[in-house]
């Protein structure tokens, strides 16, 4: 489990506390890293838990952070809402060093939360969690009619797609004309 506290990405966080993860003491002391989302709340996460995220794991491997440096500079994920990052951190902690089960029933049921979670998980490159989330998104339209699917996933109609395409072409044409005019102006 992780604990959270208010902090900033630039300031070193105060000592966050961690709940005991196992009754048996680990043979090698585990290293911890710190991450925060849009809300600047810092989460202390073990290196083992962070292994789920290919992005963070790559950052750690490439930067060669010591624990002190990591504490002073939490990884900033400004594009991820605090509550979503909390969910991700919790999931990584719960599945640390364990084989991932075929199903995960603890994912958010609300559409918007799940949507944000998918984007965050994709950004952080957490493959297993992304698979669970995508399964859950797929389940939302199971046995639904095409119109119901359109509503749930907000898929534009053909007419809306055509209008958007026309608009995009018009915009691209204007931009191209603007660039030509600018180039002609430069030439003069």
């Amino acid at each position, binding site marked *: 489990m992780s604990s959270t506290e208010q902090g900033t990405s630039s300031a070193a966080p105060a000592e966050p506390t961690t709940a005991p993860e196992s009754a048996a003491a680990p043979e090698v002391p585990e290293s911890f890293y710190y991450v925060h989302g849009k809300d600047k709340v810092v989460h202390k996460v073990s290196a083992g838990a962070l292994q789920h995220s290919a992005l963070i794991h790559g950052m750690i491997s490439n930067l060669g952070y010591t624990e002190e440096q990591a504490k002073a500079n939490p990884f900033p994920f400004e594009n991820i809402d605090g509550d979503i990052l909390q969910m991700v951190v919790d999931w990584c902690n719960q599945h640390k060093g364990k084989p991932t089960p075929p199903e995960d029933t603890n994912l958010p049921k609300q*559409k*918007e939360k*799940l*949507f944000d979670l*998918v*984007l965050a998980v*994709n950004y952080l490159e957490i493959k297993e969690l*992304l*698979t669970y989330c*995508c*399964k859950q*998104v*797929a389940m*939302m*339209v*199971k*046995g*639904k*009619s*095409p*119109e119901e*699917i*359109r509503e*749930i*996933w*907000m*898929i*534009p*109609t*053909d007419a809306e*797609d055509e209008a958007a395409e026309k608009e995009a072409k018009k915009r691209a044409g204007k931009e191209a004309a603007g660039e030509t005019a600018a180039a002609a102006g430069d030439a003069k």
Partner: protein
Amino acid sequence: MILSKYPYLVQNEILRNMKCSDLFLLSFVSKNMKKLIKSSQRNRFRRISSILYDCWESDQPYVSIFYERSRCTMMRIVKQEENGKYDFRLNLCGKRIDFRLSDQCNYPVAMFHPRDKESVIKSIHNYFLDFFGNSVEFYWRSENMNYLLRPCTWESPFFIPFLPQLQNLSLCVSICCIIPSWIFADMNKLEKFFSASPVLKSVFMKVRKTTEPFNPESKLYQAESVVIDQDWLTAPDILRYFKGRQAFLFSNNYEASDLIQFLDRWKSGEAFQKLEYLQIDVVFEYIPKNQILNAIGAKYIDATKTPPTHSVPKV
């Protein structure tokens, strides 16, 4: 939740986790969505080994998709109920078709009015050809195997299958008739059915007796593969007129001369040029094996040598 806001790889992963029946329905949401499904699921669709229209004593097929080791029901096509109720209507290759969804089934149910049956099935099939690609094999299997499970009644009507004429479709038919009263009355009907059908991919026929032989030109003999379980007439006739690739015969009615003549004609290339596999099971009668082998001049393979082998794919 706006699906299009997801990166392509995420959209792909979501689609990968959807059942084919749901992808089929999703493809009607918009042209762009159909394009996305077809491009992102190309590899998955390539793994489809076949699509089967499976009819059990009816002309209302279940449509199933077969992968290497799994099968999933994608749809059922049924006769419309008299109340004409439907949940939604879709346009498949220019034909408007009514659909129902129910909690009991995990797949949509397409409906046809009896006068529209062929055109509805054709439109659905053409949509599948476009959606899943031309490389998928399509089968139509029509069976009345339930005859074997039912108590013997004299009133059961003989089942003559409905076979549509569709592009890229192989037809497989099972005909079981073990109730004695149906032996005589329906053979004409059966012959008519074969003559009106296109050439069949496979025929499974379990009939106790036929009173008359099939016409030597019958399309029964042109089927690629036949399994015939019968006491009298047709099984020996297969040894004279069969033009397909594989035959599995279960009968008690073989004369040694039938078998010798057949083997001579096969060996000499006079007939059965396409035949690649033949299995004959004789259940009760004694077959004079040595007499037959001597008559055709069979040569024995040296027991110490490994004989050549040739694998034949099952039709």
